[in-house]
């Protein structure tokens, strides 16, 4: 059985505990972004953009065997790292699990000041769009 949303969150928290300065944490975040598969330019359309980010973040959501699959890209490496981290947590779960997920890991990985709700970093918009997409595919 694959890991639950909370198990993945705990795993990420543990990973970040290994780093003691902000530079290493951001390096790790950026690396996570680089691990995302490359998105074809034809998929980067305006209707796939998440509104509310200072950078462009494209999100494609689909459902396979009852589980949600996310695919995303961004023109900024930090935003790409953030969305990659969210995908890692939420991917391959049911719409219900995703909609009800409490994403506590953000407060705990020591990137709070940058990933906190603020209109320019778009974290809130990303989570909202991922949950909305999951909800739309729930039936």
């Amino acid at each position: 059985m694959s890991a639950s949303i909370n198990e993945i969150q705990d795993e990420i928290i543990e990973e970040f505990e290994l780093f003691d300065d902000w530079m290493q944490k951001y390096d790790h975040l950026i690396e996570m972004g680089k691990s995302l598969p490359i998105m074809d330019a034809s998929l980067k359309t305006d209707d796939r953009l998440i509104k509310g980010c200072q950078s462009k973040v494209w999100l494609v959501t689909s459902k396979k065997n009852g589980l949600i699959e996310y695919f995303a890209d961004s023109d900024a490496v930090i935003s790409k790292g953030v969305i990659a981290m969210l995908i890692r947590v939420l991917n391959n779960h049911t719409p219900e699990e995703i909609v009800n997920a409490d994403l506590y890991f953000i407060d705990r990985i020591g990137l709070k000041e940058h990933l906190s709700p603020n209109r320019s970093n778009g974290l809130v918009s990303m989570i909202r769009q991922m949950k909305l997409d999951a909800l739309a595919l729930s039936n």
Partner: protein
Amino acid sequence: MTPTVSIQPQDALYWNKIRNDFPILQQSVNGYPLVYLDNAASSQKPQQVIDSIVHYYTTYNANVHRGVHTLSQKGTDAFEAARKKVQHFIGANSEKEIIFTKGTTNSVNLLAYTFSQQMLMPDDEILITAMEHHANLVPWQMACERTGAKLRVIPMNDEGELQLDQLDNLITDKTRLISVVHVSNALGTVNPVKYIIDKAHNHHIPVMIDGAQAIPHQPVNVKELDCDFYCFSGHKMCAPTGIGVLYAKQTWLEKLPPFEGGGEMISDVSFEKTTYNELPFKFEAGTPHIEGVIALGQAIDYLENIGMDAIYAREMYLHNLAYEKLNTIPGFIPVGKAAKKASVISFLIDGIHPYDLGVILDKQGIAVRTGHHCTQPIMKQFNIPGTVRASFAFYNSEQDVEFFIAAIKKAVKMLS
């Protein structure tokens, strides 16, 4: 204003003393000393401005213009003294020409609304420029929607300078007003507003200047400019937020209808008819932002004590110092290369998103602005998502510049 020539831009002793007037600058952010380079968004406040607000509420808070009691009189005196300070600071003819508003945006909206009511007919034209802040674009667009007038735009070249050779073609017998930004917040371009004003006046067209980025950084004299309207904000010139100014020639203020109705702006009210108060009160409905006005007066005292010429020289010195060093960083791309510029550096580093750079700079205590700077048409023209903008104020230091450059180098290393 007397130009101060004795203070040199490199006089470390003097400028360190000035920097110490700003308590907020003496802190650390994310474990690094704060380097505040977002002055074009909002300036910091010297202690005497902060104190003036506390002093007002501690000793003479009361509503102005109405009460016969001592506190109200004292408040009114301080309030109107501040209006006189603004008048002298910008060289207006009379204090009647100084309307207090919430800020530049509110000033432009006041003018666009009242002007459109009185002066605009279908197919009339309002002329703005390609480098306007949304605050000097959207209110005119709304005025055009209300009246059927059209918005026309003076284009800008790739250096970020207005293409004024096109002005003669753009001014028509339908042009009712020209509204131009004095200093571009996104590019730092200083526009030749006097040239535009003279040209417009040859055609009997009034001119509004958006001076939000000019007033805090250089001497401005509305009488010499001969502009019809000039708008600016307190918070960019060491005063609090929520206070701004609309300067207008008295003849215009007499001609234009009031903006908002309510107390303070009336002379006589009955259910049948209301007559309006004299200038400037006709445009100041309701209880004003009293402590904001008083603190704006203090900010002007503070700036005048240093001298706007000295401030300009200091800021350009810091700007040039930073620019030279930035220019040595591989991939540095300045956005806006006008011949005449203010102390704003808008730039990109090749291959790095401005948002990423802004985040990593903030982690190192550096406050800059990233994004489109409320000037999306400019970003579209240059086909860029936004820029990183470092804007310098006189209270910045050579050390700020050094830390800024070092932080950029570190960020570039992480992000490329």
